């Protein structure tokens, strides 16, 4: 698309943005993939429309405040990236744009406090755990609260589990086949400690030694995608210092959003001195399912025990796994490798569940609408189990399926594998 973006004035992130705008031929192929377009049916809330809005704000033709409501409704799900045949890096555009524009946003003090709170609490597992516990007691009050405050409470599980210790090194069982570093993640440590426990067990069982490098922190994605660029840069550099890619066969994450965040480091640092370092780091990053599928392909994955009865597993594609990382086949192959499991496809499978990072807190109505639709689509396949590879989807889908009266368990893919190894499926 033709544009007059003052690239030099905007610096390296300006280059990233201008490149994306350049690449868009406004063909509209991305429209049917976009969840907000599906709900709202207007051009401003479509990927193509948002690209035009960002272009015009960058050109100075449109005030930021006019465009902001539509840009804020973007889930960052990147379904448009999968759909776009011209290879427009929309994810890089919106992330860079949010970083650039945040400083110029006029926000109410309440809004600022809420955002600062989210950014403080989410990445700090201990703080989050305490907050979640407080929230758990506030849950009965939820119906009395305004939507914006009710949404986060609705998402909390009935009982917030106890924190589990995370060993700095988990030794391989049997012959040692490899050594990986693991990003422990933030909120999920508090809400679903079993994700990590299951991950460590499954890796160990396959002869993989797992290290949790000291000094690691939040991947920075939440900060980055809400426009807190400085904070994000700090977190990114903290992790670059903690993980030395040379030492490991892979750097693993079991949260789709975090994995996508780690793979994005070279874009975040584009044009800065540590860009090369970020590239070396990102080259080693894999989602847990990619890594295990690698073992499966090499014929090195320990066989699973068969299930006690035939199980139909509805696999939900987390946006940050399917669209941002392009990982679709690996989790399905792993689940299918369990004797007795059939993987069923969910109608409208490419449509985001509405969780998307802090979306539930910022756009509760749209998030709810998408959650209801996702739960209905998943339950229409009458599954025995629901599997997905991301904490956000997990919480969102769990809360909406329960609300629709379903008791079908929602598990992380690696939890399903772990249960299969133990013969408990």
């Amino acid at each position: 698309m033709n544009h007059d973006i003052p690239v030099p004035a905007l610096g390296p992130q300006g280059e990233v943005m201008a490149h994306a705008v350049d690449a868009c031929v406004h063909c509209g192929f991305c429209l049917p993939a976009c969840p907000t377009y599906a709900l709202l049916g207007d051009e401003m809330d479509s990927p193509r429309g948002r690209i035009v809005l960002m272009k015009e704000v960058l050109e100075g033709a449109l005030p930021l405040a006019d465009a902001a409501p539509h840009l804020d409704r973007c889930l960052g799900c990147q379904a448009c990236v999968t759909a776009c045949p011209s290879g427009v890096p929309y994810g890089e555009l919106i992330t860079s744009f949010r970083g650039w524009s945040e400083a110029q946003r006029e926000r109410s003090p309440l809004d600022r406090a809420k955002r600062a709170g989210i950014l403080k609490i989410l990445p700090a597992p201990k703080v989050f755990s305490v907050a979640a516990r407080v929230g758990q007691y506030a849950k009965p009050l939820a119906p009395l609260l305004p939507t914006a405050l009710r949404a986060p409470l609705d998402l909390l599980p009935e009982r917030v589990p106890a924190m589990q210790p995370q060993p700095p090194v988990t030794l391989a069982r049997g012959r040692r086949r490899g050594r990986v570093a693991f990003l422990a993640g933030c909120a999920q440590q508090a809400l679903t400690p079993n994700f990590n426990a299951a991950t460590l067990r499954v890796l160990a069982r396959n002869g993989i030694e797992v290290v949790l490098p000291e000094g690691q922190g939040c991947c920075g994605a939440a900060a980055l995608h809400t426009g807190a660029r400085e904070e994000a840069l700090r977190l990114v550099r903290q992790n670059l210092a903690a993980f030395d890619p040379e030492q490991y066969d892979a750097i693993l994450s079991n949260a789709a959003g975090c994995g996508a965040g780690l793979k994005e480091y070279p874009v975040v640092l584009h044009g800065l001195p540590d860009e090369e370092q970020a590239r070396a780091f990102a080259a080693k990053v894999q989602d847990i399912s990619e890594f295990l599928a690698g073992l499966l392909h090499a014929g090195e994955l320990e066989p699973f025990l068969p299930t006690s009865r035939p199980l139909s597993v509805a696999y939900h594609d987390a946006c940050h796994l399917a669209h941002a990382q392009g990982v679709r086949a690996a989790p399905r192959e792993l689940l299918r490798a369990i004797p007795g499991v059939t993987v069923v496809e969910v109608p409208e499978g490419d449509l985001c569940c509405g969780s998307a990072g802090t979306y539930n807190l910022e756009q509760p109505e749209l998030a709810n609408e998408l959650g209801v639709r996702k739960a209905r689509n998943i339950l229409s396949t009458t599954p025995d189990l629901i599997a997905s590879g991301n904490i956000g989807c997990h919480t969102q889908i769990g809360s909406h399926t329960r609300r629709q009266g379903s008791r079908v368990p929602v598990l992380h893919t690696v939890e399903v594998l772990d249960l299969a190894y133990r013969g408990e499926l």
Partner: protein
Amino acid sequence: MSFSPRKTALTPGSGAPKPRSKGTPDNPLAAELTRSLGPRKVLSNPSERRNYRYDAIQFGATPLAVVLPENTADVVTAVRAARAAGVPVVGRGAASGLSGGAAPALPGLVLSFTRMTRLEVFPQRREARAQAGVVTLSVTEAARPHGLIYPPDPASFRTSTIGGNLGENAGGPLCFKYGVTGDYVKGLQFVDADGDVYELTRDAYDLAGLLIGSEGTLGLITEATLRLTPPPKYTRTLLASFAEVGECAEAVSRAIATGAVPAKLEFMDAACTNAVEDYLALGLPRDAGAVLLVDTDGDDLETVEEERALVEAACREAGGTVRRAATDAEAAALWQARRSVSPALGRIRPQRMNEDIVVPRSALPEVVREIRALGDASGLPVVQFGHIGDGNLHPNILFDPRRESSEAVHDLAHRIALVAIRHGGVLSGEHGIGTMKRPFMREAVDPVTLAALWDVKRALDPAGRLNPGKILPDEDVEAHAHP
């Protein structure tokens, strides 16, 4: 072979909060529309209106207001308000059009049909009734459970709307054997420039036929009755590659001369193949000068195979090498390659001038060679692809407005158009004339015929208020827009 999974067509119309303009509309038209239709159906903020000034090829004037009608009555109200305000009205579907049709030439009212998505299937009558905003693909999706399909298949069928398809008389790969959109329209409802509603069948004077392909310049189509057909039982696919574009065109002429009626006959030249390969990595032959993709289909497997063999032989005789798609998945991947050509070209240059010429099949080899030569001589990247079975070619000039002069681009486009006309062809196969090919109309259409077209336009839209500045190269029509 891998390709991304099928996208489900999404149905808007949820209970989610619909956009509504905040604050006071900043012009009288928007204020009046908001008063009569309510804020939910009218967009008046600059951020909203500026998003309704483009289609897939062009940016036009920012509309004064945008209406998102939910039914025919809303369309009537909006058209009457625009008439009272003396401003033009432009209909808009998904704005995937490639001739500038939905990009307003003047500031006025844009009617965006994306919320008019009611769709009913009547299997006994093999018909569907679709509102203008129904996404093309969803017609087939709704019909399939009844053992029926809707054949018109523009590459944009996941995005484009029935209203836009009728507006452009869109075609697709299937049109060689099965015909274009217009062949599947049994009747339609439209709103004229005064806001009166008509229900047309195709008896007597084919007024419906006149509206089909009129690019919103004669009336606004609100609903259509579409013909559905059972899908063929068997389909076979082949891919032939040729050292040179002209050979590929020769193969097509030969194949058709043998009496084969393939369902689809599509070609793409080396630049297209490589652009798609860069994006999808499907294993297409990168070094071929041109590739030809062919489907034969029907209910009798023997005939289907026989026809494929005929085409195969013709391709070999013309100097090509042939590969058969062994599985459905392989065939699907090949067709995905063809569908992705157009947008994948954006990777070569940010902008393109898209031609949409049709020439007699006998002239194909010469025409593609001449266009190739024009492209090479101009120094601008020119690529060619299209529904070659119909003689419908899409030569595209790729350019970067910051590097290449728009005069050079226009000049080359003009010369390409002249090649088509010289060989007895026409300016538009399916994308319409819009604003892109309007300057060439005087050369393509003789003055008597042009005068007749003007008479038709004035009969249906005397004040020139419906999508002015499109198709007809008549400055007067625009002057009428502001009485």
